[in-house]
């Protein structure tokens, strides 16, 4: 990380010294350090496959739709401002694709957002499958964020996840595709918006958020967002903390436990997949307000319920968009002093 920052600073410094604020074009062959592997690019990809929504959305943000062969694995709807660009890119499947399908579009680069999509134990593909064919690969830093103290190959986060990993990913991809200028502009924009949110909300020790992702039914234990994942980062960014203090990133909890956690604000996720009735935010709110016991929670009784896209709970660019949506609703609420 430090070496990378140093390198980025070096590149930036050279750029500044050379030709004003113009970033240097990527010189190939390019070597990228990614998830403990060194990947070499002979030239800029122009037939890339994005495995996973976040990888795809970053490429689209960089304006690379003409250089994308296909995408797969979309748990949520694409960001509205990217919908038009995304419509021109072939969609393999919104679920897990097969390796054969991915290869059938003749990719010259494959980027993935999860180790389940591309990793040593993945049933879809291993990095070596592509490397053997001379196809370079890239795995999202959020997917392999292993800390020195973590014993978990899947990146149980010892520290709070932050947008920095997304910025690193955007920077890497912009250098791979030789669109460093665009990458810098995108990162600049996101960083500005992140800082603006940070400045807008003072920190309150007693401000807690409960992130309700979904439930199979009202009687079942609810899936909540906890641990050090993106939701806890959103809570932190908006001056509060997660009401659920477990280390687990996706704990399940019964309503008794949820009531005991007594959150200041309840965040109802709008999950786009059509699996359970309570995936829909409006059904969550209807349950909260109509259940004779749950409706007595202070957050419900005082109407402190906000809605956020489910995609924001996964690490990626959508996390910041989710934080902004929560922020705009938060200001309309009557929060306790």
């Amino acid at each position: 990380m430090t070496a990378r920052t140093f390198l980025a600073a070096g590149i930036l410094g050279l750029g500044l010294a050379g030709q004003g604020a113009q970033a240097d074009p990527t010189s190939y062959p390019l070597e990228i350090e990614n998830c403990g592997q060194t990947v070499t690019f002979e030239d800029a990809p122009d037939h890339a496959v994005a495995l996973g929504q976040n990888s795809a959305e970053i490429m689209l943000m960089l304006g690379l739709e003409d250089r994308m062969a296909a995408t797969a694995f979309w748990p949520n709807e694409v960001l509205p401002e990217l919908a038009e660009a995304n419509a021109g890119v072939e969609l393999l499947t919104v679920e897990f694709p097969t390796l054969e399908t991915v290869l059938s579009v003749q990719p010259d680069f494959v980027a993935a957002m999860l180790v389940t999509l591309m990793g040593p134990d993945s049933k879809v593909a291993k990095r070596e499958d592509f490397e053997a064919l001379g196809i370079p690969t890239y795995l999202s830093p959020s997917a392999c964020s292993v800390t020195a103290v973590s014993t978990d190959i899947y990146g149980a986060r010892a520290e709070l996840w932050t947008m920095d990993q997304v910025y690193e990913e955007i920077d890497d991809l912009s250098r791979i595709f030789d669109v460093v200028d665009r990458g810098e502009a995108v990162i600049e924009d996101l960083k500005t918006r992140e800082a603006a949110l940070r400045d807008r909300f003072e920190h309150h020790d007693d401000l807690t958020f409960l992130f309700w992702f979904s439930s199979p039914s009202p009687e079942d234990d609810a899936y909540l967002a906890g641990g050090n994942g993106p939701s806890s980062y959103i809570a932190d960014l908006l001056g509060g903390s997660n009401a659920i203090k477990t280390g687990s990133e996706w704990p399940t909890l019964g309503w008794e436990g949820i009531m005991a956690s007594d959150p200041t604000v309840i965040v109802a996720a709008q999950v786009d997949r059509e699996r359970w009735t309570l995936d829909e935010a409006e059904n969550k709110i209807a349950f909260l307000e109509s259940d004779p016991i749950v409706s007595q929670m202070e957050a419900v009784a005082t109407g402190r319920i906000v809605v956020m896209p489910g995609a924001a709970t996964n690490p990626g660019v959508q996390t910041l968009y989710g934080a902004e949506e929560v922020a705009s609703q938060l200001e309309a609420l009557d929060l306790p002093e």
Partner: protein
Amino acid sequence: MIAGGPANGVLRLGLLAIGSCLVLGFAIAVATAIGDYTIDLGTVFLAITNGLGLSGAELPPIEESVVWDLRLSRALVAALAGAGLALCGAILQALLRNPLAEPFVLGISAGASTGAVCVIVLGVGAGSLSLSAGAFAGAFAAFGVVALLSNGATSGPNHTILAGVAASQLFNALTSYIVTTSGSAEQARNVMFWLLGSFGGVRWPDFQLLLVTVPLGLAICIYMARALDAFTFGDEDAAALGVPVGRIRLVLFAVTAVMTATIVSMVGAIGFVGLVVPHAARYVVGPMHMRLLPACAVIGAIFMVTADIVSRVIVAQQTIPIGVVTALVGVPFFALILYRARPQT
């Protein structure tokens, strides 16, 4: 059934053997020829001969890799896994004198799941221990528990089955506990993917491992075929016939455990094959193990390769979990055998 003397019987068996091997070869050929990526048959043929070193045709590298590295290795792994599971089913049905016995009755699959989940979720030995190694260790832990509870599997078939049920429950509970208390969404998805069983992740090294394990297991079991015949009359009768009951039982349980653990740690828990195939094989060649075991291996292989083909083509661009298909394909087939073999009153 061809009426006639023993010579006719041998001829019939020979024809059956040749015929079933041809069917297996055909199934593997079909599995190699079809998939999401449309590749013309000439290229498929050349990719295979290239792989075998019989030709040196210039082919598009991606197409060659899809045929040789993905489809062929997968079909061969499916064949060996099917053969191994069917073989284990036949052995356990004989040892435990129970027509419902199958490899997973001894809790081996539950143990393998726990081992895999430990690696995924807890990161036990992360980096040094792969998911497969964890599954293998878990399978053996379960086998150890069963061996301990049933006094080295010598305390009678029912006792062993009960010990297996207890081990299954224990390890399933452990798995659930680990997943619910410390899984992230990504981990839970990994676990589900793994538990459902899939040939998606297999490559040539997996085939090489099975190529050692399964034929070796088959050889050991065929070597003990006569003892297995004796077992079907019960332990006391087998002992009276001069069979070293305890030792053979332990050796065969160990062979079953090694084969099942290897297969499960590679492709996940695929049920039904070990239960159904031995009955189908008995229906075709009778109950004598010298014939039954090879028949189980071939039929199991054909069944699993076919199930994998179905799982890949039933929904375009997606793979249905193989365990779902083995049940969907297997149940009607099993029902037919039950119907044909019903007692005539």
